[in-house]
């Protein structure tokens, strides 16, 4: 039971919504049952509230989205709003999840935050599918393995008396065996190691994490003791935690918004126009080694590109160099993908290419081939 000094989900939603007081209340919130304080970072070029209100008016049989109108105004975060969502799912067995979420628009540039205090199922079966369905109006960022590691390092640096002990990783691993029918193995691994070791081992094993589940621990009488703070960080801009929300806000959420905004800014404005004489503005993914000196790697990249979901991949040349035309069926953005150098993939935007689609293609290459360093192409 919450004490008089504890906040509840309802008081968090009802109180003033300036960021410091919101963080303060979220630090003191009493979580019932399987509830966690969860945040999703999401990008939107249009005002996110307008996007959500549009979705509200297009309610379907499966999804009920409703703005909670008894809002307390006055805040310095712009138009903070609350929504309730009910989503029905399942074919054989009809199930449903419901919950409420706060929307903090434009916290950093085009980056918005959705905050909710619900069981994890609300995220997995309710809000996350809703956001995916809103692509490309709402775009979830992606983070590289290095950036994921940085979030954890930030957390450790912010709380030097504690350390981040990773308990579970959800990862993908490239299969090296030539006769493997699948190119990747997905696995959930339970562990109990410090974060630096886990990330180092992942790099050595060609693994990359989709999410990590961790606990904050501290040394007490020579033994590691739990702080009762558990958290999850996902590659796609999600954080869930059981305590110390403001710590994670500064060490994880703020850098997520910074990275996400920087990436979005980098990828936007690449549609060809008359002012730039219709010249393409390619981006490159650079690798530290000459990955493509092995022709098999070109084949692997091609196989990965052919698996681009909700899009198409037309092969113009497959070997020894690669040239394919990618089309995103969500917003019909097109880009050519080339391998002309042994250590880089070149992505050439076509007549109209949105930053969301470029992000999706790059994220697909990172996840299904390998991560590299994103940069401007200069021959």
């Amino acid at each position: 039971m919450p004490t008089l000094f504890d906040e509840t989900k309802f008081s968090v939603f009802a109180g003033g919504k300036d960021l410091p007081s919101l963080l303060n209340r979220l630090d003191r919130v009493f979580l019932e049952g399987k509830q966690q304080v969860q945040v999703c970072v999401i990008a939107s070029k249009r005002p996110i509230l307008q996007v959500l209100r549009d979705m509200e008016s297009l309610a379907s049989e499966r999804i009920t989205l409703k703005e909670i109108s008894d809002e307390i105004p006055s805040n310095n975060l712009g138009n903070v709003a609350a929504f309730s969502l009910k989503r029905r799912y399942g074919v054989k067995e009809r199930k449903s999840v419901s919950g409420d979420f706060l929307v903090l628009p434009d916290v950093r540039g085009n980056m918005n935050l959705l905050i909710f205090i619900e069981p994890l199922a609300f995220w997995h079966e309710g809000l996350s599918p809703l956001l995916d369905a809103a692509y490309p109006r709402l775009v979830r960022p992606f983070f590289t393995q290095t950036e994921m590691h940085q979030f954890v390092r930030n957390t450790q640096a912010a709380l030097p008396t504690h350390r981040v002990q990773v308990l579970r990783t959800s990862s993908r691993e490239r299969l090296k065996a030539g006769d493997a029918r699948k190119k990747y193995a997905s696995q959930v691994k339970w562990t109990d190691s410090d974060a630096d070791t886990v990330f180092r081992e992942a790099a050595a094993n060609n693994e990359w994490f989709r999410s990590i589940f961790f606990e904050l621990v501290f040394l007490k009488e020579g033994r590691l003791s739990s702080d009762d703070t558990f958290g999850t960080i996902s590659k796609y801009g999600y954080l869930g935690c059981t305590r110390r929300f403001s710590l994670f806000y500064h060490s994880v959420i703020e850098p997520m918004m910074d990275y996400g905004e920087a990436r979005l800014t980098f990828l936007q404005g690449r549609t060809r126009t008359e002012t730039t004489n219709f010249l393409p503005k390619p981006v490159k993914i650079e690798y530290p080694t000459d990955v493509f000196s092995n022709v098999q790697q070109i084949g692997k990249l091609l196989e990965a590109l052919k698996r681009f979901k909700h899009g198409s991949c037309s092969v113009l040349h497959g070997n020894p160099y690669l040239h394919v035309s990618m089309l995103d069926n969500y917003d019909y953005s097109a880009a050519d993908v080339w391998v002309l150098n042994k250590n880089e993939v070149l992505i050439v935007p076509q007549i109209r290419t949105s930053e969301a689609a470029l992000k999706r293609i790059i994220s697909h290459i990172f996840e299904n081939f390998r991560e590299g360093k994103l940069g401007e192409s200069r021959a």
Partner: protein
Amino acid sequence: MASPAPKPKYNHTRTREDCDNYYNTVLAALALINVVRWDEPGRKLDPDSRFGIGRRMTTSDKNPVSASTDITPDIVLQRRGNGVLGEITNSLTEKDEFWTEKLKQVRKYDDALRGWWTKDENLPSHDIAFIVQQSRAVRVADILAKEKRARKGEIKFKRPAAVIGFNRHSGATKEYVDLMKFFGDLSDRDLSERLRHGIPIPQDILLEVYGDRKFVDFEPPMAYVLQLMWDTVFPSYLSEFPVDAANKGRTLLTVKVDRIAEDMQNNFGFKVEDARGTEVPARAWIKKALEHLVIFGMAARVDDKTYQVQYRSLRGDHLEYFGGLIFKNKGKLDLLAAPLQPMLPGLGAPTAAPALAAPSVPVDDATKEPTA
């Protein structure tokens, strides 16, 4: 009873090879432009150099092949008062007769042509570069050498002429387009000598300097045009047309041939910069591609210049999709391309099929033959 002949199957490898060969010619053209524009001592491109793809040049009344008419060499280059005409042939045929005939046609460039970027459109002289796949360069060079030795040889050039082979190769770190001279000389001795040793041009540099060029001045395989239109041009119009649920996932795009041609020229080809410029890609190819879509049931002709395309997501590889449709509808497409039979007396003269009629540009261009 003899069993019926097996039904021929669509061979996508062939389509892809054709498209690749076509793109190779684009690269060869850009590579030649780049090496001629390159100022070796200054180590940079000469900003004052000029070039045109398929530029219309006027022959003199003494031209041995086509007198007093317009011809369109694949590449026309001009740098510091020197002109170079480049003709690309991507054929892999080993028949000497084919090459001999090609070379005879190229003789029309050995003339005091008008159309250069000078006040009177004349240059004192120019070079002729015959560009072929490297694997055929020796064969072509041998023919020219033999003709040169022969007292009554038919293929002799008064102006500097060279056979240049092009080839793509994977280097240690990059993909390159190589140009190598196999016969003759260019008037720029330094360039000529460097070409004799071979000049590798990184493909990524061509992309950066010249943009995303995908066309030269002869017609590409139709699957290539259709894939490009479907994947890049039509989607750029989608926001202008409402999505109607009644159309079952299709968006009806009303498109103009002129607009598509202009967009493709701006983004993937070459714009007309003066009266002698040629549109690349040509409007006729765009119209032909749209007529293909009509036959495939993916578009309807509204009028001579307007079509309504039923745009939708396609599964799989779109080059293969359109290649397959072209193969499947070959009979109908052949009918469309064929000249109409004479009508009954008194009922008027036959006309060419509207969509596949030849482009209206009055050129004499027997050399425009991309593949054999």
